């Protein structure tokens, strides 16, 4: 049996009515030891921030495990209480999103390779007829990033768009801007 898939449509300008949750940006509860903040701007092709976008993140726990039955290694409840693995942040009036989470662990993948710690990201906005998908890696995981098969498949000159940098002067904060178009356009994936 094969059914035709339902097509995507844009979230439009009024997603704030239906999608944000009060605890959406908290993939882990406030006050969790070791929690980090990932924050940045969502920018259009003119470099203008989007005040009406939604950023969602999905990731493994710090041990590289998922509380999910389709992980063939078995579903594992997170070792940190309240860890959800999923973050959702609408951008504010300045175009900024903010996710509070834990650093994910590395993951096994094809051919015995290991994926460096990363988050999968979906971006939704007016003007995007389908979500766009990217990944967040961490600048301080240079060795793991160098061995990551997904980064290796990306044009070396654009790899930097997938790397979150530690924010200056803010411990535990990483900066990751998303440029939808133009100079420094973020690498987006067909998933």
């Amino acid at each position, binding site marked *: *049996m094969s059914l035709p898939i339902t097509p995507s449509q844009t979230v439009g300008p*009024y997603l704030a009515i239906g999608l944000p949750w009060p605890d959406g940006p908290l993939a882990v509860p406030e006050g969790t030891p070791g929690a980090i903040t990932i924050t940045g701007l969502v920018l259009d092709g003119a470099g203008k921030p989007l005040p009406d976008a939604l950023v969602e993140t999905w990731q493994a726990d710090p041990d590289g495990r998922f509380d999910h039955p389709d992980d063939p290694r078995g579903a594992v409840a997170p070792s940190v209480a309240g860890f959800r693995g999923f973050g959702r942040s609408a951008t504010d009036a300045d175009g900024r999103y903010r996710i509070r989470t834990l650093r994910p662990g590395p993951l*096994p993948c094809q051919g015995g390779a290991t994926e460096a710690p990363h988050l999968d990201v979906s971006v939704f906005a007016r003007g995007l*007829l389908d979500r766009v998908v990217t990944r967040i890696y961490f600048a301080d995981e240079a060795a793991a990033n160098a061995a990551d098969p997904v980064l290796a498949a990306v044009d070396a000159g654009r790899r930097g768009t997938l790397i979150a940098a530690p924010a200056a002067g803010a411990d535990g904060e990483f900066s990751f801007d998303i440029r939808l178009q133009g100079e420094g356009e973020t690498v987006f994936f067909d998933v």
Partner: protein
Amino acid sequence: MTDQPHATAAGGLILPGYERPRGVHPPLNSPEYRSTALRAPKRPLVRLPQNLTEITGPLLGHERVTAADADLTSRHDGEAIGERIIVYGRVLDSDGRPVPDTLVEIWQANAAGRYRHRVDGHPAPLDPNFDGAGRCLTDSLGRYRFITIKPGPYPWGNHHNAWRPAHIHFSLFGRAFTQRLVTQMYFPGDPLFPFDPIFNSIPDPTARERLISRFDLAKTVPDWALAFEWDIVLRGAASTVFEREGER
């Protein structure tokens, strides 16, 4: 047209593969919809393998939803104004399997075509008894059901005399990151379909039709509400993957 589902071995582990639909979703760069001009990426997408992060996803449960969240008409002291309707259907994957216990979120304009949002400047009345947001979980058979008000069409600034056909926004998770979908449900026979660049951004006319709900007299509640049925099909996690792998 779709790529064939495939199985991948992750560190010796066999993972399900999700089909990659081709020609189903609108192209990001759709100039008739003007907001795409500065927002749609210009560089080609890079193919992402479907590894552990992609074949898993948030399984958001009952803690996010109360039974009252599925009725958008009775959140306030007074009744919402407009044509009361029941919107129901199933969430399935393309293998025909129901997607149970998955979060469905909706938002919409009111009967006058006005959103409860600060940037909606349409000079139509707000309804103090209608917020326009709802959510529910599908049941064990993948079924969902909302009680709401039929949204009105509304003008927008895309081009001269542009009007959106009446629609309800739907957000779906499925069970994997690959299955995430946000879309819009329309109503049968809307005269605005031929003029709407968002509806028509879907290249295949038969795929567009899949966003149009079906009027269902059998599910109407006499003397109370009309009913519209709409099934949503997410990308399949081919159930044959493991068998195919075993045949090799």
